[in-house]
């Protein structure tokens, strides 16, 4: 170290730096010599090899897009396949005057500005000499017209390519989703190399959620072409691997029954197997034809769908949020028993309204004249509001919210599709967090009959009902039963997943509520007794009516005078057979009026179709 403290010696230091400079110079010469050596190998030694390769650019590398996986229902009915359709495609490098060619093509085939925009977009991301589609889905007349005149156009081709097709059209569209043309945004989410040559990608629903299974992997072909770019022979090929097939839990015929049961009404219905969470039917009405979206929907068609007041594009089953109304009463009834706030035979007097201590406001029952003395069984089967106002008052919002959360209210079910929403389970924390307001006692009451801020999605409601029917075991609902792996066609089952298990304090408590729900359908005064005629099995159910707009204190709701758009939503939840539930159903009919007359019959048709045809 002491040597280091010496004075600077410029002579020594300059000699040091010069030595290093010389070393560096030698180093550069060696490394550049290596580069020159490499160039010598490329340009002199292997000249013949590379010269042949470059000769008139004969080698082209083509991406071979994989065929998209098929989708089957639970019985093997094809829900989505791929059909050959003719496409008008262009190889940019072979077209001398692109604008003129595009102009002249208009004589033989129509294409929109949208097609043109897509064409220009995709030509940006293509490698040289790859075909770029200009028009998809040519009809026979167009193909014929073009084929005759094709000799006039260098670099223009008609190619048959497999395109996604939904053979049943609008049937089950909200369960499946659909594919559309790949755009810039999609490419950011996937490996661009894998999608070289792929024109379609899942945009919504299952098609999007299982994109990684359905897509498959890209193949590569080295081809030799002539001076005009026409393929002479294939030099080497690694074929693409088809995407995996999906086998759904959906029962196509059940789905169809449910769709038809809605007739021209709007709403949603979800049927779930409560023993494993498999979704048997997932309906959102109205429906639309997804095939329109595959080949690029026209602005006019899209506008019509988007702007329709019926909102066919909106997936009500997953994204629609509705007040659950009286369908929550069995849950609260059970909560009361479990918390020992109520006994099965405790009676509450219903005089048509309920008053909070020290408050003027009347909390009305839907039955103006009141129900009289009500026990739990009567209160559920006749859907008495006052009983549940009183129960809610005594339970308190905290216990209510905690209990309902255990049945999946207020959280996503985790279904394997896109667009699912949370619903809303009102609680003190929610109100403070989202509105910065304290909780008012009156809100506890209206939450107790499933109104107020309370929101559920139809899927959530069906899943909670299924969890109830299996005495507290809640599954993650799912649409896919198994994935069929390509190329060995192994079917890999997707295991059912339990997402919540409520432990009953007393099994009897559940029996009481369950019996009350059976009475809803089979009891003499049950609100849904209208659907029990000729029923070959026993059903437990609950009707519900959700207010779309609030009625003022001194007004009366009159179905006849209220505009259809403002009419109440009709709800019905049920499970059957009551002794050993195999299906749980939730039905919501928008502006349908009362649950008993509109929603319950749809649920009956679904249960009939499933239970009677299954056996």
């Amino acid at each position: 170290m002491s040597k280091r403290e010496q004075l600077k010696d410029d002579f020594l230091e300059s000699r040091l730096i010069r030595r290093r400079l010389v070393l560096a110079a030698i180093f550069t010469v060696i490394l550049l010599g290596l580069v020159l050596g490499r160039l010598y190998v490329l340009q002199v030694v292997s000249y013949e090899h590379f010269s042949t390769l470059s000769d008139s650019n004969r080698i082209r590398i083509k991406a071979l897009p994989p065929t998209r996986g098929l989708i089957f229902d639970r019985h093997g009915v094809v829900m989505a396949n791929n059909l050959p359709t003719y496409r008008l495609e262009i190889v940019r490098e072979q077209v001398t005057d692109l604008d003129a060619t595009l102009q002249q093509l208009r004589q033989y085939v129509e294409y929109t500005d949208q097609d043109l925009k897509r064409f220009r977009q995709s030509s940006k991301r293509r490698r040289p000499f790859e075909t770029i589609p200009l028009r998809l889905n040519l009809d026979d007349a167009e193909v014929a017209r073009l084929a005759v005149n094709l000799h006039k156009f260098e670099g223009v081709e008609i190619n048959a390519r497999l395109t996604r097709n939904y053979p049943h059209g609008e049937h089950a569209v909200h369960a499946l989703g659909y594919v559309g043309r790949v755009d810039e945004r999609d490419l950011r989410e996937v490996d661009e190399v894998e999608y070289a040559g792929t024109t379609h990608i899942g945009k919504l629903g299952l098609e999007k959620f299982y994109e990684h299974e359905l897509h498959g992997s890209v193949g590569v072909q080295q081809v030799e072409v002539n001076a005009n770019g026409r393929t002479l022979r294939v030099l080497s090929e690694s074929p693409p691997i088809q995407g995996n097939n999906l086998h759904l839990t959906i029962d196509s015929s059940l789905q169809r029954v449910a769709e038809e049961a809605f007739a021209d009404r709007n709403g949603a219905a979800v049927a779930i197997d409560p023993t494993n969470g498999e979704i048997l039917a997932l309906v959102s009405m109205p429906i639309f034809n997804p095939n329109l979206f595959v080949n690029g929907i026209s602005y006019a068609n899209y506008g019509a769908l988007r702007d329709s007041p019926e909102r066919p594009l909106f997936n009500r089953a997953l994204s629609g949020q509705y007040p659950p109304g009286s369908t929550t009463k069995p849950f609260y009834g059970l909560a009361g028993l479990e918390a020992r706030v109520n006994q099965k035979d405790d009676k509450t007097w219903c005089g048509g309204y309920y008053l909070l201590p020290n408050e003027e406001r009347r909390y009305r029952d839907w039955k103006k004249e009141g129900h009289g003395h009500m026990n739990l069984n009567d209160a559920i089967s006749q859907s008495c509001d006052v009983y549940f106002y009183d129960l809610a008052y005594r339970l308190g919002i905290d216990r209510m919210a905690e209990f309902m959360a255990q049945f999946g209210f207020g959280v996503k079910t985790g279904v394997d599709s896109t667009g699912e929403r949370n619903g809303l389970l009102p609680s003190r924390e929610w109100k403070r967090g989202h509105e910065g307001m304290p909780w008012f006692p009156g809100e506890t009451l209206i939450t107790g009959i499933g109104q107020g801020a309370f929101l559920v999605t139809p899927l959530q409601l069906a899943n909670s009902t299924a969890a109830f029917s299996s005495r507290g075991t809640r599954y993650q609902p799912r649409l896919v039963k198994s994935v069929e792996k390509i190329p060995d066609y192994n079917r890999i089952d997707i295991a059912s997943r339990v997402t919540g298990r409520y432990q009953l304090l007393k099994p009897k408590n559940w029996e009481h509520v369950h019996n009350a729900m059976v009475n809803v359908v089979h009891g003499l005064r049950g609100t849904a007794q209208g659907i029990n005629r000729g029923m070959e099995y026993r059903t437990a159910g609950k009707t519900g009516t959700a207010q779309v707009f609030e009625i003022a204190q001194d007004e009366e709701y009159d179905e006849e005078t209220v505009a259809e758009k403002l009419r109440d939503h009709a709800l019905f939840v049920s499970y059957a057979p009551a002794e050993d539930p195999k299906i749980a159903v939730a039905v919501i009919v928008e502006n349908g009026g009362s649950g008993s007359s509109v929603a319950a019959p749809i649920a009956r048709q679904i249960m009939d179709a499933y239970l009677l045809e299954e056996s």
Partner: protein
Amino acid sequence: MNQSLDSDSVSITRRILDALRLDPVLLSLLVILALFGSLVLYSATGSDQAAVLRQGTRILVAMMLLVAAANVPVRMLRKVSIWLYLGGVGLLVAVMFFGEVGKGAQRWLDLGFIRFQPSEILKLAVPMIVATYLADRVLPVGFKELVVSSVLVMIPVMLIARQPDLGTAILVGSAGFFVLFLAGVRWRIIISLGVLFSAMAPLLWKFALHDYQRKRILTLLDPESDPLGSGYHIIQSKIAIGSGGVYGKGWLNGTQSQLDFIPERSTDFIFSVFGEEFGFFGSVVLILIYLAIIFRGLYIAAHSNENFGRLLAGALSLTFFVYLFVNTGMVAGMLPVVGVPLPLISYGGTSMVTLMMGFGLIMSIRSAKRFLV
């Protein structure tokens, strides 16, 4: 007109150059290279005159900046180096927060009237600050100096690497470490660092590199494995160069180049156009011109009369070499694809300006001691 220039022309030119403090040897080599580059660029852009004109304008602007840099006295360079460095690092941090994203990386800073990459400043500022710091210390550098200098270098390198811009990070890092190398870092330290780095390579591979960077390195080992992705560049570039043969296909006659098979052919991959059209013979000539420029820089460094000049001029010349080596190595399929242009030939203005200013600094160092050529 020509008569008056006849006998006195040499001395008049010499006097003008001296007044502008320019080095005639280095300057003429740079001009030859720039002219050569314009020819190649004309071919690489598919005979696009407008592009060549734009590039010509850039060369002129860069030359003027070269003259300006050559006229900054050396003692001034030493004074401003700290501010240049701090300013550059500050801008790099600014880019991290406000920078524009171009081609997937955040490199550009938009000041309203001009868009530029602050990382370019560091290509000069880093060797300047390290040279300033080491110039007054006792050489060979001791441990403390080594640590301080390494920190000075690594801060901007890390910032640039995470933009991510591996090419510029390599250039800035090597500029800094060349100063250290010239200042006599002991061999055992260099060797142990080398060993340490190789030992850490698997870790770096796993944590420091982006997916696309790993892919590029793998692709280099086996380009055929990814013919649709990054292997495509290398395959096509090799075909272009190899098919050039000994004398090349001739200017504007490169079929690979003209038919658009080579990606980025006017920027990072311009050497494959050159190789195809001018062959092995042309490549040798071009690399010799480059080598002459590097040697001239090293010569000036060796003959400077103070350590600052020796270290800075040497490091800048060697950084120029790194440009050349990384680019040609990449195009010839020896090194992974990193975004380093072929110096003074690739289309684009940012690296051109920095490089020319670097040569301006070398000329300023030369004229600090008026030695004869």
